[in-house]
């Protein structure tokens, strides 16, 4: 099986989709001839032609509007928002339109679109190239929100998202494009090639939407996380030696409540880790759900390790980023006796 990094895996997903289904179109800012500022659509225009893979004006709202209209016609567009930080001009079309069309029309129309957006920090992008706005979408009923953490999942989930008949917001942690970053910027970067999840079939396969993955089984504490923080959490478990069960949620909404409940009911402890700002982040929902599902099994307060409630500062990227040290401390606190 070929080894792919996340950029290649996403590219391969779109290649497969374009190949199999003439109704799949790919578009966005700089995605055509150039192949995307992160090269995720590299070579696709050349292979499938300008009519299927093309550049758009710089109008994120217009990009999503096009996708909605194309979806109503019967196509399956995959649109790119160059950075998740620039998705806000498209917010109205996503929230008021894409997410609502099936419901408001009594299922007479629907919206089989996928909106890809690189998210997260770690590349010195400052406050407008580092955001993780997933919680702004998890609150919107009618949207499915996905964030993969490795090449294999990324490809399988992007195929599922595109083949899904409802709108999907698909966040790609850009710091993971080239390697499984574990939160140690000072250490030499590891490439994906050494990671088992970089073995990616060339053809078509799906990862089911709504299913989490236990990336590290454990008994001492459950870690609920997704995206880059999966690798950071693994590093924290390794570094602290705490036997954490680490769950990569993959799909945030609809979330895999069974996997979550089963694990926390087993471990009795829970740490939630995400890169986004804390207040009203998706971690809040996870925390609320866990205590609703597992209250009588909880032996310690659920902790959240997250980005601070500030914009992502250019100079203090690594003070902002919730790295393994902070996750490790939370693991220690939550697993220490009494939990506090």
């Amino acid at each position, binding site marked *: 099986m070929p080894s792919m990094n996340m950029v290649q895996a996403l590219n391969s997903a779109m290649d497969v989709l374009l190949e199999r289904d003439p109704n799949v*179109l790919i578009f966005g800012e700089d995605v055509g001839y150039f192949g995307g500022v992160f090269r995720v659509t590299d070579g696709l225009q050349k292979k499938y032609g300008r*009519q*299927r893979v093309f550049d*758009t*004006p710089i*109008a994120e*709202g*217009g990009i999503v*509007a*096009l*996708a*909605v*209209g*194309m*979806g*109503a*016609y*019967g*196509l399956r567009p995959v649109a790119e928002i160059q950075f998740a930080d620039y998705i806000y*001009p498209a917010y*109205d*079309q996503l929230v*008021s*339109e894409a997410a*609502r*069309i*099936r*419901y*408001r*029309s*009594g*299922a*007479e*129309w*629907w919206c089989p679109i996928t909106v890809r957006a690189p998210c997260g920090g770690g590349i010195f992008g400052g406050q407008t190239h580092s955001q993780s706005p997933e919680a702004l979408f998890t609150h919107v*009923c*009618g949207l*499915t929100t996905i964030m993969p953490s490795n090449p294999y999942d990324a490809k399988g989930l992007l195929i599922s998202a595109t083949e*899904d*008949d*409802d709108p999907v917001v698909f966040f790609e942690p850009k710091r993971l494009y080239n390697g499984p970053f574990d939160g140690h910027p000072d250490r030499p970067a590891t490439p994906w090639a050494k990671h088992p999840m970089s073995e990616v079939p060339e053809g078509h396969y799906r990862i089911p939407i*709504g299913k989490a993955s236990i990336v590290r089984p454990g008994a001492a504490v459950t870690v609920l996380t997704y995206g880059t923080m999966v690798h950071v959490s693994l590093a924290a478990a390794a570094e602290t030696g705490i036997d954490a069960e680490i769950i990569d949620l993959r799909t945030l909404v*609809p979330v895999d*409540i069974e996997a979550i409940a089963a694990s926390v009911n087993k471990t009795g402890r829970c740490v939630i880790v995400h890169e986004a700002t804390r207040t009203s982040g998706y971690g809040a929902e996870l925390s609320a759900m866990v205590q609703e599902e597992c209250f009588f099994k909880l032996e310690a307060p659920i902790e959240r390790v997250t980005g601070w409630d500030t914009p992502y500062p250019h100079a203090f990227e690594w003070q902002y980023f919730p790295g393994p040290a902070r996750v490790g401390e939370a693991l220690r606190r939550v697993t220490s006796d009494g939990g506090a």
Partner: protein
Amino acid sequence: MPDHPALQLHIPEPKHRPGEAADFSHIRLPKAGSVERPLITTSAYDIRELAFQLIRVLDDEGSPKGAWDPGLDAETLKRGLRAMLLTRAYDERMVRMQRQGKTSFYMKCTGEEAVAVAQAFAFERNDMFFPTYRQQGLLIARDWPILDMMCQVYSNSGDRLKGRQMPVMYSSREAGFFSISGNLGTQISQAVGWAMASAYKGDTRIASGWIGDGATAEPDFHYALTLASVYHAPVVLNVVNNQWAISCYQGIAGGDESTFASRGIGYGIPALRVDGNDFLAVFAVTRWAAERARSNLGPTLIELFTYRAAAHSTSDDPSRYRPADEYEKWPLGDPVDRLKRHLVAAGAWSNDEHQAMLAEVDAQVRDAGKQAEELGTLNHGPRPDVRTMFEDVLKEVPWNLARQRKELGL
């Protein structure tokens, strides 16, 4: 800058307010037949002046003038007249029903019937519409059952939208009528996406989108113009300039500074401005634009110059913000009267026939109304199944909604 006077903030204001007499004498009205009709192949640049004109076909006596006369046969015109009358009768009844508490809300298109009806006639039956809430005439002109529309307005057991949408937010895939959004503007950019999809597939169907004068300030109008221009999308984009956006006259949307049609110029989109109360002119202009789109020549922007004769909606009271006699003074008249006068002048219609048609559409509306009420009204009688409230958020009901449905005891 001692040599410069203090700056001043300009806030536009309509010429007249309640208590004052309306006056439209500042409006330039070219004579019927006076505006040239270019070939559809003419470049946007070469016809840019049309965006400042007003295409009119019917003169004051009701005779058609000039190159834009579409030469429609009397049968077609009578069908158009009937669709306008039916639209009006339907509107009248639904407002009455709203007043009687049978629904929460309603919106009429009185005075603007020619816009939707004549435009629907100018398209092919399977062309795709992305309308606003004031184009009910599109559905009626496509012979969509008003019973179905009424059920939507009543959110009753016959409502295909399962009681989910506010009144008048129709949807009909069968009629090529996209689900209306409560959020202004969003449909017009979607129309471009649909049109691009059609072009991509090598289809022959084109799309059309509508937007109000007020809503042109929203981003989607700009997206629609930009995207249609860049990709030469086979789409007809319509601005229904009915002079008002709730309480704001069209100057608040920029209409005092230039015509809405002229917005097309800067995007290189051919733009036409038409007397929106002139059935023949609206038909002709729309057909011209549709032909352009269907011939792969790209988008056209049409400004339909008309007047919102009624209140914005049943929640509105226009006497609070505009002179009571505005509609009377409105120089472009009533689209129904004008088409009727034309047919009579052409010897194809009589007052008696007109009365008979009025009676007939009234009866049709009454009958449909009775049937609809048997299927329920907002607060009485049969309604959609409440369990459906949890469906269609996604294609499959996700676990959280299944649980919530249970929480509600269903």
